[in-house]
């Protein structure tokens, strides 16, 4: 009874939260924004070095955000592998004996790799880019992992860690290099903007994929010592 009442109260609270929020959104929508950022953006696109505005925002105008964002991802990866159980990599039970998966894997893996490459390349002029590519790459890795491909580099060792931070490191180096070059941080030299961004995007893709994959792999699973886990 009390629980029901509490639920109802909670529901009411959340509904009213939504309501107020919506009302507020509605009110705000009725007024014009004082600053026209898109216009400002388009005026500066030329200086950004990339064609697509989103990529420009991500990797140039607000590249510090992106740097930190990758940092967040790396943190998650680190925290994940700090929990890792080395043994789970060799765990045979992880391998799926599903033939469908095995069959798909042979077709899908090259396809997905290609897709990742495309996404990365397309990021310069269309929505897409490092993150998307990295996600696809990670998915490929998951597929391979499930299919039993031994990926030794995922063992928590120097290689994994190197992979984790590669993109981040390159990003960082570029930032610092720009300082050494005499500019402000993350201010790419105009003539190098495009290749730099491409390099960054590529290593980022790799790192993002590594992080995601590492997180997938390091989640501790199937410990035979734990009967409860086994029974569920």
């Amino acid at each position, binding site marked *: 009874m009390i629980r029901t009442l509490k639920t109802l109260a909670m529901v009411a609270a959340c509904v009213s939260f939504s309501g107020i929020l919506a009302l507020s959104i509605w009110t*705000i929508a009725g*007024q014009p924004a004082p600053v026209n950022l898109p216009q400002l953006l388009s005026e500066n696109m030329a200086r950004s070095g990339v064609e697509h505005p989103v990529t420009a925002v991500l990797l140039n105008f607000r590249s*510090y955000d992106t740097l930190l964002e990758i940092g967040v991802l790396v*943190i998650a990866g680190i925290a994940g592998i700090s929990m890792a159980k080395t043994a789970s990599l060799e765990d045979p039970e992880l391998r799926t004996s599903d033939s469908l998966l095995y069959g798909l894997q042979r077709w899908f893996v090259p396809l997905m790799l290609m897709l990742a490459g495309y996404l990365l390349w397309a990021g310069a002029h269309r929505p897409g880019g490092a993150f998307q590519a990295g996600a696809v790459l990670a998915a490929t890795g998951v597929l391979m992992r499930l299919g039993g491909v031994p990926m030794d580099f995922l063992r928590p060792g120097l290689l994994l860690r190197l992979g984790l931070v590669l993109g981040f490191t390159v990003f960082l180096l570029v930032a610092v290099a720009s300082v050494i070059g005499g500019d402000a941080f993350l201010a790419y030299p105009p003539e190098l903007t495009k290749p730099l961004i491409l390099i960054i995007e590529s290593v980022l893709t790799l790192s993002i994929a590594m992080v995601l994959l590492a997180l997938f792999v390091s989640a501790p699973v199937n410990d035979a010592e734990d009967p409860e886990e086994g029974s569920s």
Partner: protein
Amino acid sequence: MTLWLMAGLLFTPLAWAVLTLLTDFAWGRVVTWGGIVVQVLVSLGLWLAVSRDGGFYYGLGGWEAPLGIELRVDGLAVTFVLLTAVVASACGFHAGVYIDPDKPWHRYFWPLFWFLWSGLNAVWLGGDLFNLYVGLELISLSAVGLVALGGKAAALRASLRYLLAALLGSLAYLLGVALIYGQFGTLSIAGVVFWLEDHPVPAGSGLALALMVTGLALKTALFPLHRWLPPAHGIAQSPVSALLSALVVKASFYIAARLWLELGEPLGNLAAAQLVGLLGSAAVVWGSWLALRQSALKQVVAYSSVAQIGYLFLLFPLTYSVSESVSQQAQQGITLQVISHALAKAAMFLAAGNLILSTGSNRVDALTGVSRFLPFSLFSFGLAGVSLMSLPPSGGFAAKWLLLQASLGSGQWWWVLVLLTGGLLSAAYVFRIYRASFLENSETDEFYHPSRSLEVIPMVLALMAIGLGMVSEEVLSVMALPFEEEGSP
């Protein structure tokens, strides 16, 4: 020069993080200690630069706001940068000795530590709402990672609780940011303020502020949203607890305070200000009360954080629609409270860690007789306690004094009672620890002696917390410096 300093603040910590990730614990320690020296020097350099020339806005990548991310480098920010350098380096040195290098997962301590530091710097200097969000997340996740390090069930439980609270807080904040951006079309705080200066307040903007402040309050563990804090701070390794209590919660509060000071007057209202103040008061009383009733040493300290954080939120009522001088006093008081609490709480946690190391137990009862063996750490603990109790000449006292003045000056005398009661209650729980340690018991005569370097660090911090009161005028004067040039909004 400034460029190098900024780079040193924002990027070198990340570089240290990368380096330490690639090495093992022992080498990580070497790197870290070297890095700490660099960071302290850089922070000090920026602080000196600002205290000499005044603050400035700094557009990252050469992009000014609103297009790019603009950093706000003012006296307050650099003071906190310096504070972070001090506290974090103390924790870093302490951790290097305190943490067991043989546990394989401890190698991840250093990268997380450095990410945390860089996140803090980002927050102190941030002038962009979304960038602050990312900075907060950086801090939150690395903090969660640090708490969970080692991965015992209880630690995981605490860190999960912490993570969920932090995420919810971040989302609420982000929602507020979304509304602000929707309304004003800019993410720069300075830009919003600039626009509000000569325009009427648009309808519907109060919610954004409310959401942001609520989210940040949750991340700061304001009563009644504090339940996640004590387990997380209590269970982490002592240097981690110190970092969390001293700096991490301050980061979210710092943003909330900045928002309130810039936007509170136009967007807030009196009832909200009083409500926040009331919640802060409740935190002071309730947190202290709970601290008094904990049986685990670090839980006491953790609940004490809840209480001390409560004071910070008195900023809201004390700066809302009051005279300039009162607001000034309140701001100064809160700033001092942040600094002194950071120093004192770090000292306290580190000292508590030493005590636990030597008694082998986290229980308050286990301290019986320890005063005979570990007077130095105990003394550090006590000195830190002096600041928490806001007794003179500590920084806590100077803060309390200013807050008292502000309360009396604004006619809001009810906060006076909170301030005084809080001081007494904190005395109660600090002395409870002391009482236990002074109890003579011939049975327990065996204590492990931690190394001298472990004992010195909390003492230094505690002495700084105490000494802060004596030099608070100087500290505060740096924050009051005028801007070199007005930033372009």
